[in-house]
Each structure stands twice: as C-alpha cells, then as structure tokens.
C-alpha cells in the first residue's frame, strides 16, 4: 500500500468542487417548480443518490461474479466497498424521497413498487453485511459474499417486476408517465441540466469513495494477515 495516489487526490478535489456547484445549481440555477414549490428541489439529489445506490449494487454483483471466476481477493474488497457505500446512499435517497412525498403525496411512506423495492434492496445489503460478519475464514467470507451479491443481483429485478404488477403512483421521470402517477411534472431544460449534473457529481463522489474504501479494505486485509502471522 503506497501513499495516496495523485489521481485520487485530484478525483477528491474535483468531486468536492462539483458537489459545491451542484448544490448551487439546485438552489439558484434550477427554476422553482410551479406546483410543488421549493420542496421539489430535493428531487435532484434524490435521483442522484438513488442512481449511486443502484450503481453500487450492480458493481457489487459484477465484482461478485469476478471474484467467483478469479478467486482474487481484490474483487471481494470491491464488492464490500460498493455495498457499504450504496447502503448509505440508498438510505439517503429514501429519506429524501420521504421529504418530497410528504407534501406531494400527502404521506411519508407508501407501499409503492419503487419504494418497496428500495427497502428490499436495503435489506439485501444488510443481510449481506450480517452474513460476512458471521464468517471468520476470509476465503469463505469472500466466496459466500460473492454468491449472495449474485443472488441479490438476480432477485431484485424480479422483486421489482413482482411489485410492479400492482399499480404505481411514483412519477415516471423518463418515458411515458403513468396515468396513476401523482406529483408528475415536466422538466424545463434547466431542471434537466441540474439533474444530470447532480447524477454526474454523485457518480464521481461514488468513484472517489469507492477508491478510498478499496484502499482501506486492502489495508485491513494486510493488518489481518499480520495479526495471523504474529498470533500463530
């Protein structure tokens, strides 16, 4: 483990600067939505954090498959890092959604497909962490973790389909809106730019955090190996 790579420092700085700009855009650049008012501004970071949550989930699944194929422990560290980060971001997305849903839907929470799926994704992540906690042998922990992320990766879309067969009231931002959707709105170009900028910003924040967490995971593994060497 060398010193902090130059590229990572640059990535950190860029992510920070973009984040400040994104906050500025959300509050000053994007117009106030006519019907919902100020609370609609929560939408930009809501979409961005939810996107990062899904991105991490997919990254964990892919890293899990890569681990099973190569047995290279690095992939296990990537998988764990992606899950941990996404767990937090997805939770933030759910909280922001709640803040928006209260005035828009008149309720903090509703058993709508995307909300329910998001909750189940969080539970899958939590189960993954509990599973890892219960295993001492690092190789087995990595193998089981990889299998579980793979299973989650397959099951979550099916869950979404299953719950989608019920009716939905969540606004569909992309594509045709559902007649049942409440709180739907047409985006102005400025709104769209702000949203895409937020998504980009959070993707970079995710990449930066992931890199940090992978470095930390590699260090943790080194410590574990050192401890094993000196205690046995």
């Amino acid at each position: 483990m060398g010193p902090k790579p130059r590229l990572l420092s640059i990535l950190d700085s860029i992510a920070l600067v973009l984040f400040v700009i994104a906050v500025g855009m959300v509050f000053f650049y994007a117009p106030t939505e006519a019907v919902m008012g100020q609370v609609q501004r929560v939408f930009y970071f809501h979409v961005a954090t939810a996107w990062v949550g899904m991105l991490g989930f997919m990254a964990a699944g892919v890293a899990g498959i890569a681990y099973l194929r190569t047995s290279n422990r690095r992939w296990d560290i990537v998988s764990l890092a992606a899950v941990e980060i996404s767990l937090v971001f997805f939770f933030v997305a759910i909280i922001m959604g709640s803040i928006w849903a209260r005035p828009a839907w008149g309720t903090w929470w509703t058993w709508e497909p995307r909300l329910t799926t998001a909750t189940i994704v969080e539970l899958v992540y939590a189960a993954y962490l509990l599973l890892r906690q219960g295993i001492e042998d690092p190789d087995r922990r990595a193998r089981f973790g990889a299998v579980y992320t793979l299973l989650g990766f397959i099951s979550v879309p099916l869950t979404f389909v299953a719950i989608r067969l019920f009716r939905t009231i969540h606004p569909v931002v992309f594509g045709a809106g559902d007649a049942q959707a409440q709180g739907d709105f047409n985006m102005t170009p400025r709104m769209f730019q702000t949203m895409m900028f937020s998504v980009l910003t959070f993707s970079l924040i995710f990449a930066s955090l992931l890199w940090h967490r992978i470095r930390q995971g590699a260090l943790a593994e080194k410590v574990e190996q050192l401890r094993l060497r000196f205690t046995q």
Partner: protein
Amino acid sequence: MTRLRAERAPFKTRQASPAAAFLRAVSAVVWKDLAAELRSRELVSAMLVFALLVILIFNFALELNVKARSEVSAGVLWVTFAFAGTLGLNRSMASEKDRGCLDGLLLTPVDRSAIYFGKAIGNLIFMLGVEAIVLPLFTILYSINLFHPGLILVTFLGSVGYIAIGTLLASMAVQTRTRDILLPILLFPLAIPVLVAAVKASAGYLASSPMSEIAPWLNLIIAYDIIFIAVAFMVFDYIVEE
C-alpha cells in the same frame, strides 16, 4: 478440485452413463434424508406443529371471521409455509453439519450438485408433506375450500422456488457463526418475488379470478423457479468448497 473431479470420473463412468450415475447419486441423498426422517420423525413433526401454531396465532391476530377469511387466507397460508419451510431448511442442514455428515457427503465421489439436488428434493418432500396436511386442516378449521387444482399447482411451484433458494442459503447459513438466525434474514429478502407471486396466484384461484389475472403471477413463479434452480446448480460448488 479439478484434479479430484478427474479422479472421480472413471469411477462414475465405470457403472453407467453420467446422467444415470448423477440421478442415482441424487436419489441416494434423497433416500438417506427420507430414511433418517422416517426413523426420527423430528423434522416434519416440528414443522407441522409450528405451522399449526402460526395458523392459530393468525386466527387471533387477524380475527379470521368469514369476510376476512376469503381475503387473507392466501396470505396466511404462505406466511405459514414460509415460516415452517425455514424451520425445516435450518434443521435439515444443521443436522448434516452437527454430526459431520456434510463432510462425509462431500467426500463421496459424486458431483457436488448431486448433493444439492438431493438435499433440495428431500427438503421439498418434507415441505410438501407439511402442506399436504396443513391444506386440509385449514379447509376444516376455516371452512374455506382449498382443494382447487390451480391452488395445489401454485403451492407446488411456489414451494419448488422457495426450497431451491432456501437449500442453497441454508447450506451457507450453517457454515457461519450465527447459523439459525441468519437463514431467515438471508432468505426472505430474496424469496419475496416468489412469495408475492404465490400469494397473488393463490388468492386469484380462491376468488375464482379469470386466468388472465392469474397467468402473470404463475409465469413469474415459473421464471423464478427456473432461474434459481439454474443459479443454485452453478454456485453450489463455491458454497461447499473446502
């Protein structure tokens, strides 16, 4: 492990074609589980008593009067099956682990997936056995007719999917420190699609809904079954690898 496989191969081909040998290995594992169960009768009896207790609790929790019954019966049934199934899955794998049988099984010169299928079919038989007793009892206790061919089909297909992933996760859970408490936590979030679909399809049959309303749920159960049997077949090797 590939080396071990290479050594096993002549042993298998000496007797019969690989497919026949595989089937024989699977049936040997199933038979072993059935024989053990016939002698001890601890698994199915525990599942059954537990299932009845769950139904009893629901009776008070939901005040299952005539009107409520027709609406929530399917849900009550599947929660009961899921809980009893978890109990059985845990016990079935824990007994393998406790007495060191799993290591013995893994040493046998057969493909690892034969062990998975053997255990899964054994678990499925136990679960179906429990369901075969719970369904008529539920019919008598709540005077709601559950003997609909469609409902029995859904019960079978739903149990297949639940057991397919449950057996896989149970073999994972028994190898961890937290064991029994871990299985439901691992299993329920992943089993939600099959449980939701099974509840909806069962409710559809009970309410005599048109087939066009039930078909999507039935398709989802079948898709789930096929996907998870295939995935379990592919990843079981990684779970029992030593």
